[in-house]
């Protein structure tokens, strides 16, 4: 049961990453690899500030701002200096590695005994259910604080999902979406596409840095290598969500990215659970994702066939 709760919690924390990648990948149509640097940037800024004694909420907000700046930088390199989007991301990601080392002053910052946003959630659990250490769910006992942490992360992700939805439905957000769809058309409407891309990437990386900040506080440390591979997982989440939700309008795509991230982590959890050779973990994970994407299609086809026979 702890594994299930843990998988959903991690899935939701990384859903913020998926939302960020949704913006760069689905709105602006390129895979922004800045993500791997900005996730670590968020983690390292929040961890260093918390260790230095700042309020964890403030630290998380500064981490968000740090990601915003990193993303804006990628956008500026891409638009003002006309460097290929992928390469701009690579440049900023590479630079961020050194910056993250400088922010932390070392390669790894532990947060074991510090008060973090997650400890706030634990306090919330104590306040909501004084005296209850464990709860019972489907006959399994689980620590009450894990449930509250899960619920709190869910609320945070929902809030950011709604903000994104409202933002992209506004006139400004619609212009931003149109920038990704048809630059010439929207430029003819008098929109500055360059600043749209810069701002879009900034928002995207702000979300990713937030994801990193929450992840670091959840797992109790920030490490300079924690961003490696994150772009790929984020892309996978966005695509899984898209494939499994039948409606393709904006709201569904946003919720799809969130669900996709949760499904992805659940699949990893199953792969961990079935007790195979540890070297095969990623192979099995890839296989599961494949099955999750293909199975609904096969079922649908069979259903249609049986209807034809009737």
């Amino acid at each position, binding site marked *: 049961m702890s594994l299930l709760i843990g998988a959903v919690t991690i899935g939701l924390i990384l859903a913020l990453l998926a939302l960020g990648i949704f913006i760069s990948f689905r709105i602006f149509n390129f895979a922004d690899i800045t993500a791997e640097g900005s996730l670590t940037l968020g983690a390292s800024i929040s961890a260093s500030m918390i260790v230095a004694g700042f309020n964890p909420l403030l630290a998380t907000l500064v981490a968000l701002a740090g990601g915003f700046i990193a993303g804006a930088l990628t956008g500026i390199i891409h638009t003002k200096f006309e460097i290929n989007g992928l390469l701009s991301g690579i440049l900023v990601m590479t630079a961020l590695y050194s910056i993250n080392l400088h922010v932390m002053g*070392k390669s790894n910052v532990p947060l074991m005994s510090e008060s973090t946003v997650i400890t706030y959630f634990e306090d919330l659990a104590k306040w909501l259910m004084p005296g209850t250490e464990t709860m019972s769910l489907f006959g399994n006992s689980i620590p009450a604080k894990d449930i509250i942490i899960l619920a709190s992360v869910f609320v945070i992700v929902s809030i950011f999902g709604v903000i994104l939805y409202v933002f992209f439905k506004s006139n400004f957000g619609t212009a931003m979406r149109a920038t990704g769809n048809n630059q010439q058309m929207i430029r003819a409407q008098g929109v500055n596409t360059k600043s749209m891309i810069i701002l879009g990437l900034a928002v995207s990386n702000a979300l990713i840095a937030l994801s990193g900040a929450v*992840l670091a506080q959840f797992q109790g440390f920030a490490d300079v290598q924690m961003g490696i591979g994150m772009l790929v997982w984020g892309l996978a989440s966005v695509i899984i969500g898209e494939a*499994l939700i039948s409606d393709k309008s904006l709201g569904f795509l946003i919720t799809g990215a969130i669900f996709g991230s949760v*499904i992805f982590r659940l699949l*990893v*959890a199953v792969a961990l659970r079935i007790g195979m050779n540890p070297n095969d973990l990623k192979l099995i994970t890839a296989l599961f994702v494949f099955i999750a994407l293909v199975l609904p299609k096969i079922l649908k086809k069979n259903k249609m066939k049986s209807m034809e026979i009737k």
Partner: protein
Amino acid sequence: MNKSFLKGLIRFFRPYLKILVIIAVIASVILLIDKNRNKSETLKKRFVLIQYNDSPLSELSMQGIIDGLQTNGLVRDKDYELKVSNAQGDIATLNLMVDAVVNDKPNLVFITSTPPLQAAAQKIKTIPVVFTVVADPIVAGAGKSFQDHLPNVTGISTLGDYEGMVKWVTKVLPSARVIGTIFSPGESNSVKNMSELKKYAELAGIKLITVPVNSSQEITDAALALASKQPDVICQIVDNLTSASSATIIKIAKDNKIPVFGFVSDQSAKGAVLVVSRDYHQAGVDAVRLALRIINGENPAQIPFEFVSKTNILLNPAAAATYGISFPAELYGLKDVIITK
């Protein structure tokens, strides 16, 4: 009104149907496996080993753990079960592995390297945790000192043997008064290693001169700068930046007729005269020794952290000859000495 509300609700959730069903299926699979797992309670001891990535260090220490259990008379799958989990470098998966441990409640958890130790220290509060291949468990946050640490965590530190290094410098080169190293200020382990070397060198009346580097391109210049300061010997410490370029450092030192001593076994074949290297296989064996004390009823809170008990000394006589260095006879007589040809 109720009916239309229900209809609206159904219409709203319809596109999510597929995804919700899939989530429900996966969740029940996890719970089902959990249930069956908990039923199969046996007398076997259940151990879990959590690793962060695939590296020679993690493989050597894992083999050490398996060999250690065997030499203590325990047979795999008969007396104990060892489940090996490797996050393959993915930090989110690492967190799930720790959750799986909390879920399964094995008798004991082995950990190699720092990130899994930190993830475990955050979440595992009741199951004993024994780590190994962690250079500095104090910096990692596992305790305040080797004696005063998290109550369920103990293990083996593999910090370099600086005391031993200084001892061998004074024995092999009795006239040495100044030693040098390149270090990387951006890495906590590098700064730590440098200050440890400095501490033991000063105790022996030897001065340490250092040159900082921030990127791999600067290493050639840094090595030249260090060589121009004419230390009697370069004792190159371990960090991620310089260890990848140790061949460059050794070559420049050789051009300037300064011998190099090192801390990683591969430096020996590259021309380091003497290497004092921690034995990572032994680190696994040592971890098993602590683990069995816990299994036999000792409280991990009462077991202090230890340094790995075995250190290898690698000698390169050919390299030594180019500097006119001859090793004292007592070195050849030691048990853990390896001669590089």
